[in-house]
């Protein structure tokens, strides 16, 4: 086990290096760059732009810039934002709590609701319940978030006036209740799409299980439906679900681009959008690396968890 984890971490390091090379190259090869914002500023002349380009080191060859960046990143210095001159690490890390709050709460809610709905749909397979939940899930997955987010704001903030229209707290208030009222709409909007995913995965995993002989045996022994479904059924269906959870783990720090923008939620998604608009390379690279790290960790955690749940899977053989 220990050897397995060490080997996986070694692979992860190589993977992250590859991600950084590709990310850095794509960013610099794409047309345009961080100086466009300067061009749009009427007080800035072409002379100023040349001067700034040199000061940022953007006039150097890309591989020189990359080597400098890698060296800095590994020695714990992630560079400075082109816009604001702040050190990149705090710019990125200070967004994690907000994103964690939003994504964590909606993932938990989605997990609870999605698994419950999935089991229900699997048990009532090919009935109105199954078709109904499938239809709602398909709708949830296919309609755009920004539209639903704006609709929620329109109904609950503008028309009914019950909930605030975005933001993480009332400026100058910030009590727990206040923060919860701000969390509610974006959390529900996000939880909806995640619930739809979870319910579909749970349903198909459970359908496989429910036709197995041991379920019939359990029923025949006279076990109640809850023990059959949860104790025997869900437990066996956990493997694909844990894998899905591992895949969604990066969302906890990656945030949600659209929902965070619509609800002005000051998380990683919002930061990513503005850094992308401005081509703030140092910030983009940092977000990319943090995101990639969590993808790697999420997958690793899922593999380990699956092995712990299912004794038939041996990590040494993976």
């Amino acid at each position: 086990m220990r050897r397995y984890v060490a080997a996986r971490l070694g692979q992860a390091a190589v993977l992250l290096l590859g991600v950084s090379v590709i990310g850095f190259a794509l960013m610099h090869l794409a047309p345009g760059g961080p100086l466009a914002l300067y061009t749009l500023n009427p007080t800035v002349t072409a002379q100023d732009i040349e001067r700034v380009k040199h000061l940022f080191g953007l006039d150097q060859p890309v591989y020189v810039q990359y080597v400098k960046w890698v060296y800095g990143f590994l020695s714990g210095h992630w560079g400075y934002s082109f816009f604001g001159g702040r050190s990149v690490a705090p710019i990125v890390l200070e967004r994690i709590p907000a994103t964690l709050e939003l994504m964590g709460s909606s993932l938990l809610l989605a997990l609870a609701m999605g698994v419950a709905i999935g089991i229900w749909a699997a048990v009532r397979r090919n009935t109105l319940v199954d078709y109904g939940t499938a239809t709602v899930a398909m709708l949830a997955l296919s309609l755009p978030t920004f539209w639903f987010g704006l609709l929620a704001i329109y109904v609950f903030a503008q028309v009914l006036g019950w909930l605030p229209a975005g933001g993480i707290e009332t400026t100058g208030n910030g009590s727990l209740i206040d923060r919860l009222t701000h969390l509610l709409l974006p959390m529900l909007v996000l939880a909806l799409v995640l619930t739809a995913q979870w319910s579909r995965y749970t349903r198909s995993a459970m359908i496989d299980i429910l036709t197995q002989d041991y379920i019939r045996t359990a029923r025949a022994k006279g076990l109640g439906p809850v023990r059959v479904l949860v104790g025997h059924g869900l437990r066996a269906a956990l493997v694909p679900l844990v894998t899905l959870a591992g895949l969604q783990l990066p969302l906890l720090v990656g945030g949600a681009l659209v929902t965070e923008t619509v609800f002005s939620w000051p998380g990683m998604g919002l930061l990513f959008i503005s850094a992308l608009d401005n081509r703030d390379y140092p910030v983009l690279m940092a977000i990319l690396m943090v995101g990639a790290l969590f993808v790697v960790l999420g997958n690793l955690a899922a593999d380990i968890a699956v092995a712990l749940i299912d004794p038939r899977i041996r990590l040494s053989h993976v």
Partner: protein
Amino acid sequence: MLRERLTIGRRALLAGTAAATVLGHLRAAGARTPGQLIIGMNEEAVNFNPLLYVNTGVETSVEFIVFDAPWKLDPTGSFVPNLATEIPTQANGGISADGKTWTIKLRKDVLWHDGTPFTAADMIFTLDTLLNPKVVVRSRNGHEHVETYKAVDDYTVLIKLKDNFAPYLVSWQKTSVIPKHVLASVPDINTADFNTNPIGTGPFRFKERVAGSYISFTPNEKYHGGKPKLNLLVQKYIADQQTMYAQYQTGEIDIYDINGIPPVLFAKAKQIPQSKTLLSPSPFVEFIYFNCAKPQFQEKVVRQAIYKAVDKKGWIDAVWYGVPVPTLSYLPPNHWAYNKNLEDPGYDPKQAAAMLDAAGWTVGADGVRAKNGVRLAFTMSTTAGNKPREQAQQLVQQNLKKINIEMTIKNMPGSVVWGDYTIKGEYDTLMVAWDPLLYPDPDYTDRIHSKLIPAKGGSGSNYVQYENPEIDDLCAKGVAAVDQAERKKIYDRIQEILLEDVPFAPIFSWQAIMAAHDWVSGYTVNPYTSTNSWNTGDWSVT
């Protein structure tokens, strides 16, 4: 990152409704905090160093709240002394007879937010920083015309210019002073803590920034312009325009500022109770920019015909709901130097077609005009996703199709269009809004002088690659003249020539739709500054 696609689910909606009912009552209990004003903006300020920030408007707002310049511009366009005791003129001896020596006298009662007195040393330090090649200042604001400068005493600064440069008055209106005692010992000003934790002399002190949410300011009790009336001023960042509109409507923000309410919502915004909308004229003029170096646009008759064939009024009315003001010049019509005698070429597709026929641009077999093998076909670019601009492009496309000109829309992300694509002259035409370099000074040298074409190695912003010796000459005369009446004649002529040559086609001057709730007083739109936060010390709430 999650790329979500979502819709409404009845279950979630019901659950949400139930929870909202409970929480809604709790929220209604909390009223507005007395003395606290929240101004909403849909861009985020991140750099508060007035010399370094890039994003004019939202970051200028912080500059005006925290810092001061020697003088400021009021809404009538008059200069008002701020850190200086008077506006230098030749009459009061502040500007020498040859226009090259400037004496700035400073107030003696100004304190930095940490209590240190403000002196001429800070002015000198500000100039040192602006001209320091290692500091990433966005622009030198015209201070590159400075030859020498020194502090005569603690409250007098003497500046000698290399040449006679009338817009220099605006240079100091645009240059906020930074504190020497805080920054002189900082090894690298580009990454100084000061840039996110500024200390100024302005009406408010910087309190805190919560990334992605807001920036707050507390009043500077000892402000030399009088104690501000608010207890707390908040500049709140709301990324989405619709959400910002919702927050304004619910009173979560008191003022709707930067970039304004989308014109499509103008009629609705006027109906919001306890609120008034304000049209905020801006120095920005919307243009069709021609790349005069491209074969299609080398003859001015082509540019003239396009200008004539475009339905300018239809553009303003259909796309912008009639909010912007038509202009025939690079200046807004309310500017003192605007040439009121410019003759409007109007909207006349027939005449435009006739002009092209006469010039030898005849319609080919493919239905598109051509001359000597050059097809009258081109692309037009602007920032992708800018809906009103995309609509306007379609309108222009249809207008031009009628006179057999083929225009293709080629929009790209802002970071692409406004980079080398613009600067190095790779574009055919652009749809863009710009204002003069040192607005409200009417000097436009930077955008029209033949030596300032970056695509040809020049250092300015003549992206249209326009070359006209008479214009070069007039530009030089314009900045050297001091008398306003004399300058007016020069700029009248410049505008006349530009309208004849059409290197860029001016369409309208922008007006943003701002809104303020009735409990706010003192908020006054200012056509001469890039943000309306120019007098926050006078703002109050009831």
